[in-house]
């Protein structure tokens, strides 16, 4: 079974091909085919996971081509890391695809949506199973493409197409860095396969500052894909896409690919001198965790709040990986995928009901959307790390790792945890509490109503997972997850009661602050805004990153383009025109020779032959 793992990505690919070509004519306008593809793949992924837990491992390789003397070996790997990712992607993607049937109903490009979803699923599974950087890179670009296509799915909206372009271009920056890193590794180790690269590293044939550089370049790709500072600007805008896309691509899977890449290539970072690379990973993660949370505080678009939250949580994962909490980082990836997908889907359900993203126009939805409310609440509790929900165990493990490694990072993480509770509390307050504030002002919308069964059932399943999944990493049960996925040279340090208490306190304090601001009105939010205007403006302006990018890259680029254009127009074209003019003049000169009449040519040929013969004879 495990050696046939390469079949799994092919199932969504087949669905993609079928839906692309015969979409409208397939059952359910292609949706059922797409669902069948991913559900089968997900089931197969679970079987593989079971096999791997039972001890099975596989590495299917194939010599693709030989570059000079270096064979380019590609293949798929099945180990605990990829098996967990495979199962997670399969299950989450299945649920989201089923959910999409309800969410996308009535869309004119319905089959195309499912085709893109299938293509994305193929790409993601392909990426997860890759045992070499080449396949990773191919999958990386494919998911990027799908992300572009799906963000811009409603391309008739200018904001959507601009957001798609932004996402594509910004992630390309990271991808380019990653490509250079990969080439650097290939240059020095002669292979793209992870195990051979690691062997070369372990043997000490490649190390020092160059290794750090290569590791950081590869990490650059992860920064772009996982929306870490400073390449985070695309993720909030990406919320222009349909909500299932946000759930699948921009919460659960693709953005987590960066984390997966760092985990997959962990020795690369680990073996840098003095864990330099890991330190940088940790700081990038820590800063993002805090920055994302702060920006989420002032956002009114429900999906954008969740996007900032995603950014922040991905920062936690990098923080965990960077502070030698390999298991903790991966565990948070897993739990986050579940509860963030849940949150996005629930948010989608809300949007579906009220027709707008603006939280200020919601409110009082508890009664109208009971299932959505309860599942959303479970997701929120999991996100804010309230025991016994999933997020508590994973975030706690990360904070423990951070504390043991670097107190500054721990502080950043703790502040982030506090703010997480605060902005989620704010979100819940605006959405569910109070009275209904009318929803979409333009559409004549009746009273909000609960979403259809096809959307709520996935929510319930994900909520159940969000409740129980954390326990597989609980120290109380001997932390089976850590025994399954761990980096051999690291042992997960057990957290002390004090540390757990500190992180729990941060979360609860965050909730309390939210309570103080909104339901109990101890402090007025407006007063805060007026008290700290500079901070508020800074946050609303997203730390001016977009502005800086606009000035430096977009306008700066325009200047460079203008210069290049002028150079091309006058210098290069001028030269070419000069040559053309010269050729033309010469042509005018010799044109009389070409009469276009063959008898002239024949006469000249005969004359020439005669002259040659005579000359040869006389000599």
């Amino acid at each position: 079974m495990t050696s046939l793992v390469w079949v799994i990505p092919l199932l969504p690919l087949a669905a993609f091909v079928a839906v692309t070509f015969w979409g409208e004519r397939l059952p359910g306008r292609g949706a059922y085919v797409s669902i069948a593809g991913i559900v089968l793949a997900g089931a197969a992924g679970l079987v593989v996971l079971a096999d791997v837990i039972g001890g099975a491992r596989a590495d299917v390789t194939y010599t693709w081509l030989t570059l000079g003397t270096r064979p380019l070996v590609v293949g798929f790997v099945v180990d605990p890391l990829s098996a967990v990712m495979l199962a997670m992607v399969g299950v989450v993607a299945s649920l989201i695809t089923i959910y999409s049937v309800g969410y996308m109903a009535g869309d004119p490009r319905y089959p195309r949506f499912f085709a893109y979803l299938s293509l994305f699923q193929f790409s993601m599974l392909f990426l997860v199973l890759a045992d070499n950087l080449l396949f990773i890179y191919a999958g990386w670009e494919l998911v990027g493409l799908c992300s572009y296509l799906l963000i811009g799915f409603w391309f008739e909206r200018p904001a959507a197409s601009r957001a798609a372009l932004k996402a594509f271009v910004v992630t390309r920056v990271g991808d380019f860095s990653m490509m250079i890193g990969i080439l650097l590794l290939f240059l020095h180790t002669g292979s793209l396969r992870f195990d051979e690269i690691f062997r070369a590293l372990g043997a000490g044939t490649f190390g020092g500052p160059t290794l750090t550089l290569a590791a950081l370049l590869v990490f650059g790709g992860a920064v772009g894909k996982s929306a870490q500072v400073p390449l985070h600007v695309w993720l909030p805008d990406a919320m222009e896409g349909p909500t299932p896309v946000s759930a699948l691509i921009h919460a659960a899977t693709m953005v987590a690919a960066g984390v997966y890449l760092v985990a997959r290539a962990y020795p690369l970072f680990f073996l840098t001198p003095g864990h330099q690379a890991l330190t940088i990973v940790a700081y990038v993660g820590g800063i993002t965790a805090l920055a994302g949370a702060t920006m989420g505080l002032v956002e009114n678009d429900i999906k954008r709040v969740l996007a900032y939250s995603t950014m922040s949580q991905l920062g936690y994962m990098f923080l965990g990986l960077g502070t030698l909490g390999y298991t903790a980082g991966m565990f948070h990836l897993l739990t986050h995928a579940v509860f963030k997908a849940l949150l996005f889907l629930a948010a989608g359900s809300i949007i579906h009901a009220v027709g707008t993203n603006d939280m200020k126009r919601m409110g009082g939805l508890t009664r109208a959307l009971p299932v959505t409310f309860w599942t959303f609440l479970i997701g929120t509790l999991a996100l804010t790390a309230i025991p016994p929900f999933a997020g508590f165990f994973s975030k706690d493990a990360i904070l423990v790792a951070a504390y043991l490694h670097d107190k500054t990072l721990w502080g950043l993480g703790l502040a982030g945890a506090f703010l997480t509770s605060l902005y989620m509390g704010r979100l819940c307050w605006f959405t569910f509490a109070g009275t209904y504030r009318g929803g979409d002002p333009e559409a004549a919308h009746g009273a909000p109503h609960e979403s259809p069964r096809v959307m709520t059932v996935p929510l319930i399943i994900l909520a159940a997972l969000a409740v129980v999944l954390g326990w597989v990493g609980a120290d109380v049960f001997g932390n089976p997850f850590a025994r399954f996925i761990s980096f051999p040279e690291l042992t997960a340090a057990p957290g002390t009661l004090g540390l757990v208490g500190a992180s729990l306190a941060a979360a609860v304090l965050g909730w309390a602050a939210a309570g103080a601001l909104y339901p109990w009105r101890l402090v007025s939010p407006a007063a805060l805004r007026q008290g700290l205007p500079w901070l508020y403006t800074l946050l609303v302006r997203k730390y001016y990153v977009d502005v800086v990018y606009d000035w430096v890259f977009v306008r700066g680029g325009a200047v460079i383009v203008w210069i290049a254009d002028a150079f091309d127009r006058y210098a290069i074209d001028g030269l070419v025109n000069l040559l053309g003019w010269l050729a033309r003049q010469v042509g005018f000169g010799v044109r009389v020779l070409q009469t276009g009449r063959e008898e002239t040519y024949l006469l000249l040929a005969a004359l020439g032959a005669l002259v040659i013969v005579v000359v040869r004879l006389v000599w």
Partner: protein
Amino acid sequence: MITLTHYLVLSALLFGLGLYAVLTRRNSVAMLMGIELMLNAANINLVAFNKYAAPGAMQGQIFALIVITIAACEAAVGLALILAAYRRFETTYVDELDTMKG
């Protein structure tokens, strides 16, 4: 006594006639006829050399046969081209076919 030289002179004259036709005729079919004459002149040479210079050999005649074959091919393709050009430009006079004039 007829010697090799007799044949060579004859073939030279025939070749000259053919060349003259090719160089001065306006009609493409007439030019083709000139080419046939030149090929025949060459063939006379081949066969004559075969008989007088290398009596034991076969190659002269073999080559003449090949030349005849190629001449047939050339005539077929050449005449097909002339027909096609006639359909397109309604002329078989080569000096009127000057669309390639620079």
